[in-house]
């Protein structure tokens, strides 16, 4: 069943190759290569790429952001220089060493070509890897999992941290969601535990969504009890921030080191919707983000040869600031990619400029790199690959910028 399914999709990919040659890229990776564990970090609320990765050498930046800007490198509160044109927000300092070591890449003026300025619609589309709403409710990472799925997959192959799993991971099998590792157990006496588990397995032995997710949850309880990820504290020197996001990323690290079979994880950091008094919020959030990612990098150490982490956000913010010391909804923003197989130390961009005539729609930074080409390259280069038509059905031009090797 599964084999023929995969063949079917391969055929589908090859079949359309003859018609639409440039769209289709089948993975060239060797089949014996192990797939990377992929961690998706979604920055919810539309993070301001112009403040987090300020184009300090673009004079129009300071014209559009007279109050809400990051000063050029050098001064107090100035940007941390990245390449002579872009800098990092000072809150991102913890990630400078990964950038300098070539393990962190930044992609700018990047995002979805979708014109949506609605958080909820844009997040949903981005998680599904689509531009137009369509009858395809799997997540982009979920489609990759469906494609790769075989008997060797553990119940923990996909994990979403939090109350529920993000759409990014939605696929045909169940995703496990957990808020903390410690709380993921049946809280009852040992004798009762076996009996309760057995009864629940009987009661939920059907096939609807509630039932299949219940059975997966019971399977996950067993797998967790066996792997005991709680016994893997972070490596020395890895200091996760004591926030929900920090703890959740740490838990993903523990699952990875417990070798529980994780293939893909998704985690969110919200709060980026800064219509008002943006500066303080972005200070706090960038610091939290950078500390957590840097801790994860340290914690995983050599494992980062087989782990790739990416961040994205549904859209960016208006190029010019509003009257509330904030910014309204915009278009392009930025992405990060981290791992030992990332061609890092570089800001990938095709800078559209910030002159009035360069702006998109109501006054937004234009998207010049489609986020799907970053994620598509990730799947192509860091896993045994899959057809881009299958992964991103409405991506018209496959053009990988070379972020991954």
């Amino acid at each position, binding site marked *: 069943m599964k084999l023929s399914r995969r063949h079917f999709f391969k055929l589908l990919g090859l079949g359309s190759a003859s018609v639409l040659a440039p769209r289709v890229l089948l993975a060239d990776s060797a089949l014996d290569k192990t797939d990377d564990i992929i961690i998706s970090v979604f920055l919810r609320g539309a993070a301001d790429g112009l403040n987090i990765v300020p184009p300090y050498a673009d004079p129009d930046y300071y014209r559009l952001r007279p109050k809400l800007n990051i000063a050029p490198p050098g001064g107090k509160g100035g940007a941390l220089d990245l390449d002579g044109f872009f800098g990092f927000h000072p809150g991102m300092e913890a990630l400078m060493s990964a950038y300098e070591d070539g393990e962190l890449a930044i992609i700018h003026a990047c995002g979805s070509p979708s014109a949506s300025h609605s958080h909820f619609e844009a997040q949903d589309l981005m998680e599904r890897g689509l531009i137009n709403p369509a009858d395809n409710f799997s997540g982009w990472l979920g489609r990759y999992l469906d494609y790769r799925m075989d008997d060797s997959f553990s119940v923990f192959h996909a994990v979403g941290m939090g109350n529920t799993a993000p759409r990014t991971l939605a696929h045909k099998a169940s995703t496990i969601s957990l808020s903390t590792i410690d709380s*993921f157990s049946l809280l009852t006496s040992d004798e009762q535990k076996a009996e309760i588990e057995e009864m629940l397995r009987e009661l*939920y032995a059907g096939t609807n969504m509630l039932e299949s997710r219940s059975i997966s949850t019971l399977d996950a309880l067993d797998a967790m009890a066996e792997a005991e990820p709680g016994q893997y504290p972070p490596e020395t020197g890895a200091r996760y921030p004591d926030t929900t996001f920090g703890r959740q990323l740490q838990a993903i690290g523990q699952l990875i080191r417990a070798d529980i079979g994780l293939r893909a994880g998704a985690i969110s950091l919200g709060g980026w919707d800064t*219509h008002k008094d943006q500066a303080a919020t972005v200070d706090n959030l960038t610091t939290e983000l950078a500390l957590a990612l840097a801790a994860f990098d340290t914690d995983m150490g050599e494992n980062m040869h087989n782990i790739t982490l990416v961040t994205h956000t549904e859209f960016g913010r208006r190029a010019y600031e509003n009257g509330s010391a904030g910014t309204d909804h915009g278009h392009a923003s930025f992405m990060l990619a981290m791992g030992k197989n990332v061609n890092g130390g570089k800001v990938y961009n095709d800078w559209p400029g910030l002159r009035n005539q360069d702006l998109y729609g109501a006054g937004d930074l234009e998207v010049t790199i489609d986020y799907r080409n970053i994620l598509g390259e990730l799947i192509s280069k860091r896993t045994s690959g899959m057809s881009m038509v299958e992964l991103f059905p409405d991506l018209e031009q496959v053009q990988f910028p070379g972020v991954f090797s």
Partner: protein
Amino acid sequence: MAIQRRSFISNAAAMSALLATGISTQTKSRASTTRNSTLPAPDADTLTLNRTTFGITQALKNKIRKVGRKRWLESQMNWKDLDDTRTEAYLQKNMPTLYMSPQELSNLENKNQAAKQLVQATVYRAMFSKRQLYEVMVEFWSNHFSIYIRDGRPVSLLKTIDDREVIRPHALGNFRELLRASSKSPAMLIYLDNHSNVAGTANENYARELMELHSLGVNGGYTETDVKEVARCFTGWTVGRFGSPQLGKFIFASTKHDQGQKSVLGTIIPANGGMSDGEQVIDLLASHPSTAKYISTKLVRRFVADEPPPSLVDQLTETFIATDGDIKALLWDIFLSNEFLTSADQKLKRPLEFMLSAMRTLDTIPSRQSSNYLRNILFSMGHIPFNWTPPDGFPDAAEYWASSNGLLTRWNYATALTGNRIPGLKFDYQTLTDNNRDPKTLVTILANRVLHRPLSNADEMLFVRYLSRGKPSIQARIPGLIGLMLASNYFQYR
């Protein structure tokens, strides 16, 4: 699209069941066969109570059986006639911040009290109020006009006013009035940044969410230009600050208002309209057919199915337009529809509903000592009232809430509740069982008394077997049995 999505979900479920055999090779015991997912349906009275209350109680069941479904619904619609003095007396005594003015709230020594008491009062009313349908609708509109109560100090204080003066007066009233009241709600204006929306450098946050989330819906026919124009219409709609006699109240600051001409959804709003610009926008939105359809869809999703049947949505949309948004008329359309009556087990209880309905069905009374424990349960399932960060409100779909984290927490809560492991909460099963000892009789009694619906033969046998396993005795196994019933699929749907 609606239907396709549902078939996707069930296909996905079927696929996952097929894959499950492969995935869970490491697990020990598995049920030997898969079973039919369709449970024997509850009757119309049970379905109605499940959908229109925070959980069935024995008293409610007796009442609806006695007067009939329609008359029971009528009495709930006429909520003001339902005597709720005991609930209100408790709140007046214990939750004084509910009744405070903005000035009094801002003078509170412990300012966290206001948000805390509002959350507690909301859960208390859901649990104890006789006006169950009203409380369900208060929850519905609070979520539709969602305000994150921890979004800074002013909002945490002023949400109390929003609850008292915006949501509650209109919850079973008229949508246009509700939308109008919300547009002048200080908590909303601050939460969505309109209090700093001024001429020249408009802030679009409220304008966008007003159309996307409160009225037209995301594909309701407005453009990016409309967002900008509506933002201009609402410039100067703000909130009185400290030192002002209007502290915490809605004010229109005419000097901050953009007096130019605007064009909204094709309608010209002439220059120098002042505050009437925004009021005109509210009227345009309340009369717009997209709003009628969007609100109807959301109501049908709340009361009928995650994927609302289009036939019923169309019917409500017509009623919405004909009655100018009469909320009771919309609800009657739903409750009297065939779509409603045939929709058993299509709505998963959300965590708050699950938590309260378990206590209500067992006649177990939470106390002050249990409130922290219960709060933690809600927190770990992500469903504390007014604690949804973005402005779209908690989802109301099984796909979101049926997560492994959520299901596990439900199971743990059910066994803790019936195992008397929740501090300050005493569960007494004796009153439920009439001291019966025969396993089959016990299962029948409890299914009726706790689940209010018939079991399949297979599940009845399963529960009987559980009781008859010996060691511990049948009697000692009854709480465990009830816990399993609450943890089972029979109790997850509303």
